[in-house]
Protein backbone atom coordinates (compact mmCIF):
# COMPACT_ATOMS: atom_id res chain seq x y z
CA UNK A 1 0.00 0.00 0.00
CA UNK A 2 1.20 3.53 -0.72
CA UNK A 3 1.72 6.08 2.03
CA UNK A 4 -1.33 7.89 0.64
CA UNK A 5 -3.59 4.86 1.07
CA UNK A 6 -2.16 3.97 4.48
CA UNK A 7 -2.62 7.54 5.72
CA UNK A 8 -6.30 7.47 4.74
CA UNK A 9 -6.77 4.09 6.42
CA UNK A 10 -4.92 5.41 9.48
CA UNK A 11 -7.30 8.35 9.86
CA UNK A 12 -10.35 6.12 9.33
CA UNK A 13 -9.22 3.58 11.95
CA UNK A 14 -8.37 6.37 14.37
CA UNK A 15 -11.89 7.79 14.03
CA UNK A 16 -13.32 4.31 14.64
CA UNK A 17 -11.13 3.95 17.74
CA UNK A 18 -12.13 7.35 19.11
CA UNK A 19 -15.86 7.19 18.30
CA UNK A 20 -16.80 3.55 18.74
CA UNK A 21 -14.04 1.54 20.42
CA UNK A 22 -12.90 3.84 23.23
CA UNK A 23 -16.07 5.98 22.89
CA UNK A 24 -14.07 9.01 23.92
CA UNK A 25 -15.46 11.17 21.07
CA UNK A 26 -12.66 13.72 21.38
CA UNK A 27 -13.09 14.53 17.69
CA UNK A 28 -16.54 15.97 18.47
CA UNK A 29 -15.20 18.52 20.97
CA UNK A 30 -14.15 22.12 20.47
CA UNK A 31 -11.30 21.53 22.90
CA UNK A 32 -9.84 18.95 20.52
CA UNK A 33 -10.08 21.13 17.43
CA UNK A 34 -8.53 24.19 19.08
CA UNK A 35 -5.69 22.03 20.44
CA UNK A 36 -5.24 20.36 17.06
CA UNK A 37 -5.07 23.73 15.30
CA UNK A 38 -2.23 24.76 17.62
CA UNK A 39 -0.40 21.45 17.12
CA UNK A 40 -0.90 21.72 13.34
CA UNK A 41 0.79 25.12 13.26
CA UNK A 42 3.86 23.72 14.98
CA UNK A 43 3.72 20.54 12.89
CA UNK A 44 4.15 22.62 9.73
CA UNK A 45 7.32 24.13 11.24
CA UNK A 46 8.94 20.98 12.67
CA UNK A 47 7.90 18.77 9.78
CA UNK A 48 9.09 21.48 7.41
CA UNK A 49 12.52 21.31 9.06
CA UNK A 50 12.60 17.50 8.96
CA UNK A 51 11.70 17.36 5.26
CA UNK A 52 13.25 20.66 4.12
CA UNK A 53 16.70 19.62 5.37
CA UNK A 54 16.17 16.09 4.00
CA UNK A 55 16.42 14.53 7.45
CA UNK A 56 13.45 12.43 6.30
CA UNK A 57 13.16 11.72 2.58
CA UNK A 58 9.98 10.43 0.91
CA UNK A 59 9.81 8.11 -2.06
CA UNK A 60 7.95 9.86 -4.90
CA UNK A 61 6.19 6.59 -5.75
CA UNK A 62 4.60 6.35 -2.29
CA UNK A 63 2.99 9.82 -2.24
CA UNK A 64 0.68 11.83 -4.51
CA UNK A 65 3.26 14.61 -4.68
CA UNK A 66 1.37 17.59 -3.26
CA UNK A 67 3.53 19.28 -0.67
CA UNK A 68 2.95 21.82 2.07
CA UNK A 69 5.97 23.45 3.73
CA UNK A 70 8.23 20.81 2.07
CA UNK A 71 6.26 17.93 3.58
CA UNK A 72 3.93 15.64 1.62
CA UNK A 73 0.24 16.30 2.30
CA UNK A 74 -0.02 12.73 3.57
CA UNK A 75 1.84 13.94 6.66
CA UNK A 76 -1.23 16.02 7.57
CA UNK A 77 -3.28 12.83 7.76
CA UNK A 78 -0.51 11.02 9.64
CA UNK A 79 -0.24 13.89 12.12
CA UNK A 80 -3.99 14.08 12.59
CA UNK A 81 -4.17 10.35 13.33
CA UNK A 82 -1.27 10.62 15.78
CA UNK A 83 -2.81 13.54 17.67
CA UNK A 84 -6.38 12.18 17.75
CA UNK A 85 -5.25 8.73 18.83
CA UNK A 86 -3.08 10.19 21.58
CA UNK A 87 -5.82 12.42 22.96
CA UNK A 88 -8.43 9.65 22.74
CA UNK A 89 -6.24 7.40 24.91
CA UNK A 90 -5.47 10.29 27.28
CA UNK A 91 -9.19 10.96 27.81
CA UNK A 92 -9.91 7.23 27.96
CA UNK A 93 -7.53 6.69 30.89
CA UNK A 94 -8.86 9.78 32.63
CA UNK A 95 -12.42 8.45 32.33
CA UNK A 96 -11.23 5.13 33.74
CA UNK A 97 -10.05 7.08 36.78
CA UNK A 98 -6.33 6.89 36.06
CA UNK A 99 -5.04 10.22 37.35
CA UNK A 100 -8.14 12.12 36.32
CA UNK A 101 -6.91 14.65 38.85
CA UNK A 102 -5.18 16.95 39.45
CA UNK A 103 -7.06 18.89 36.77
CA UNK A 104 -5.22 21.34 34.54
CA UNK A 105 -5.11 24.98 35.55
CA UNK A 106 -5.73 27.56 36.68
CA UNK A 107 -2.84 29.30 34.88
CA UNK A 108 -0.22 30.90 37.09
CA UNK A 109 -0.06 33.64 34.51
CA UNK A 110 -2.09 34.50 31.42
CA UNK A 111 -1.83 37.76 29.46
CA UNK A 112 -5.55 38.37 29.21
CA UNK A 113 -7.93 38.57 32.12
CA UNK A 114 -10.33 35.67 31.84
CA UNK A 115 -13.86 37.13 32.03
CA UNK A 116 -16.29 35.58 34.48
CA UNK A 117 -18.88 34.73 31.85
CA UNK A 118 -16.61 33.57 29.02
CA UNK A 119 -16.94 29.92 29.92
CA UNK A 120 -13.39 29.97 31.21
CA UNK A 121 -12.67 28.57 34.60
CA UNK A 122 -10.89 31.34 36.42
CA UNK A 123 -9.77 30.25 39.85
CA UNK A 124 -11.25 26.79 39.44
CA UNK A 125 -8.99 25.72 36.59
CA UNK A 126 -10.45 22.88 34.57
CA UNK A 127 -11.99 21.37 37.66
CA UNK A 128 -15.56 20.53 36.60
CA UNK A 129 -16.68 21.11 40.18
CA UNK A 130 -16.15 24.77 39.35
CA UNK A 131 -19.38 24.37 37.34
CA UNK A 132 -18.26 26.96 34.86
CA UNK A 133 -17.17 24.56 32.16
CA UNK A 134 -18.97 25.08 28.90
CA UNK A 135 -18.53 23.96 25.35
CA UNK A 136 -17.00 26.66 23.16
CA UNK A 137 -19.58 28.74 21.32
Amino acid at each position, binding site marked *: MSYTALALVGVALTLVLDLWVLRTRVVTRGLFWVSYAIVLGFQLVTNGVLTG*FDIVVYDDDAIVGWRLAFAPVEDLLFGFALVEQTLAWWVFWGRRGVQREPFAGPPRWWPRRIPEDSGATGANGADPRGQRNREPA
Partner: protein
Amino acid sequence: MSHFAYIGVLACCLLGTVWLEVVLRTRVYRRWRRLLLTLLPVVAVFVAWDVYAIAAHHWSFSSDQVTGIRLPGDLPLDELLFFVVIPICAVLAFEAVRAVRGWPAGDER
Protein backbone atom coordinates in the same frame (compact mmCIF):
# COMPACT_ATOMS: atom_id res chain seq x y z
CA MET B 1 24.01 19.19 9.59
CA SER B 2 25.09 16.84 12.32
CA HIS B 3 24.03 13.49 13.67
CA PHE B 4 21.99 15.43 16.20
CA ALA B 5 19.76 17.23 13.69
CA TYR B 6 16.71 15.01 14.17
CA ILE B 7 17.21 14.71 17.95
CA GLY B 8 17.69 18.49 18.05
CA VAL B 9 14.29 19.09 16.46
CA LEU B 10 12.70 16.84 19.07
CA ALA B 11 14.56 18.61 21.88
CA CYS B 12 13.17 21.93 20.59
CA CYS B 13 9.66 20.45 20.74
CA LEU B 14 10.13 19.42 24.38
CA LEU B 15 11.80 22.69 25.38
CA GLY B 16 9.17 24.69 23.51
CA THR B 17 6.30 23.08 25.41
CA VAL B 18 7.60 22.40 28.94
CA TRP B 19 6.72 25.93 30.07
CA LEU B 20 3.03 25.04 29.68
CA GLU B 21 3.40 22.65 32.63
CA VAL B 22 4.78 25.45 34.80
CA VAL B 23 2.95 28.56 33.66
CA LEU B 24 -0.46 27.15 32.70
CA ARG B 25 -0.32 24.25 35.17
CA THR B 26 -1.20 21.61 32.57
CA ARG B 27 -0.20 18.87 35.07
CA VAL B 28 0.64 16.42 32.31
CA TYR B 29 4.11 15.36 33.46
CA ARG B 30 2.74 15.27 36.97
CA ARG B 31 0.20 12.68 35.78
CA TRP B 32 3.02 10.56 34.38
CA ARG B 33 1.27 7.19 34.86
CA ARG B 34 -1.68 8.31 32.75
CA LEU B 35 0.78 9.75 30.22
CA LEU B 36 2.71 6.48 30.09
CA LEU B 37 -0.48 4.44 29.54
CA THR B 38 -1.41 6.86 26.75
CA LEU B 39 1.97 6.56 25.06
CA LEU B 40 2.13 2.74 25.10
CA PRO B 41 -0.63 1.97 22.54
CA VAL B 42 0.21 5.02 20.43
CA VAL B 43 3.91 4.16 20.22
CA ALA B 44 3.07 0.52 19.44
CA VAL B 45 0.73 1.41 16.56
CA PHE B 46 2.89 4.10 14.99
CA VAL B 47 6.15 2.16 15.35
CA ALA B 48 4.46 -0.73 13.54
CA TRP B 49 3.35 1.66 10.78
CA ASP B 50 6.85 3.13 10.63
CA VAL B 51 8.62 -0.23 10.43
CA TYR B 52 6.29 -1.22 7.57
CA ALA B 53 6.86 2.11 5.80
CA ILE B 54 10.64 1.81 6.14
CA ALA B 55 10.54 -1.75 4.76
CA ALA B 56 8.27 -0.61 1.90
CA HIS B 57 10.62 2.33 1.21
CA HIS B 58 7.90 4.94 1.71
CA TRP B 59 10.49 7.06 3.48
CA SER B 60 14.09 6.92 4.59
CA PHE B 61 16.41 8.88 6.84
CA SER B 62 19.53 10.87 6.10
CA SER B 63 22.16 8.71 7.77
CA ASP B 64 24.36 11.71 8.64
CA GLN B 65 21.50 13.55 10.37
CA VAL B 66 20.27 10.84 12.73
CA THR B 67 22.12 9.36 15.69
CA GLY B 68 22.88 6.16 13.81
CA ILE B 69 21.37 3.99 16.51
CA ARG B 70 19.04 1.56 14.76
CA LEU B 71 16.44 -0.51 16.56
CA PRO B 72 14.83 -3.75 15.32
CA GLY B 73 12.97 -3.19 12.06
CA ASP B 74 15.71 -0.75 10.99
CA LEU B 75 13.91 1.91 13.03
CA PRO B 76 16.16 4.85 13.93
CA LEU B 77 16.14 5.65 17.65
CA ASP B 78 15.32 9.24 16.64
CA GLU B 79 12.10 8.05 15.03
CA LEU B 80 11.02 6.10 18.14
CA LEU B 81 11.58 9.24 20.21
CA PHE B 82 9.40 11.19 17.74
CA PHE B 83 6.44 9.00 18.75
CA VAL B 84 7.10 9.78 22.40
CA VAL B 85 7.79 13.51 22.08
CA ILE B 86 5.00 14.53 19.71
CA PRO B 87 2.19 12.85 21.70
CA ILE B 88 3.51 14.54 24.86
CA CYS B 89 3.35 17.89 23.04
CA ALA B 90 -0.20 17.10 21.87
CA VAL B 91 -1.40 16.30 25.40
CA LEU B 92 0.31 19.44 26.71
CA ALA B 93 -1.47 21.55 24.08
CA PHE B 94 -4.79 19.88 24.92
CA GLU B 95 -4.42 20.47 28.66
CA ALA B 96 -3.09 24.00 28.08
CA VAL B 97 -6.24 24.96 26.18
CA ARG B 98 -8.30 23.31 28.89
CA ALA B 99 -6.40 25.16 31.63
CA VAL B 100 -7.10 28.52 30.00
CA ARG B 101 -10.59 27.97 28.60
CA GLY B 102 -12.01 25.31 30.90
CA TRP B 103 -13.76 23.47 28.08
CA PRO B 104 -14.77 19.87 28.83
CA ALA B 105 -12.77 16.94 27.47
CA GLY B 106 -15.09 14.11 28.42
CA ASP B 107 -13.11 12.80 31.38
CA GLU B 108 -14.92 14.93 33.97
CA ARG B 109 -17.43 13.52 36.37
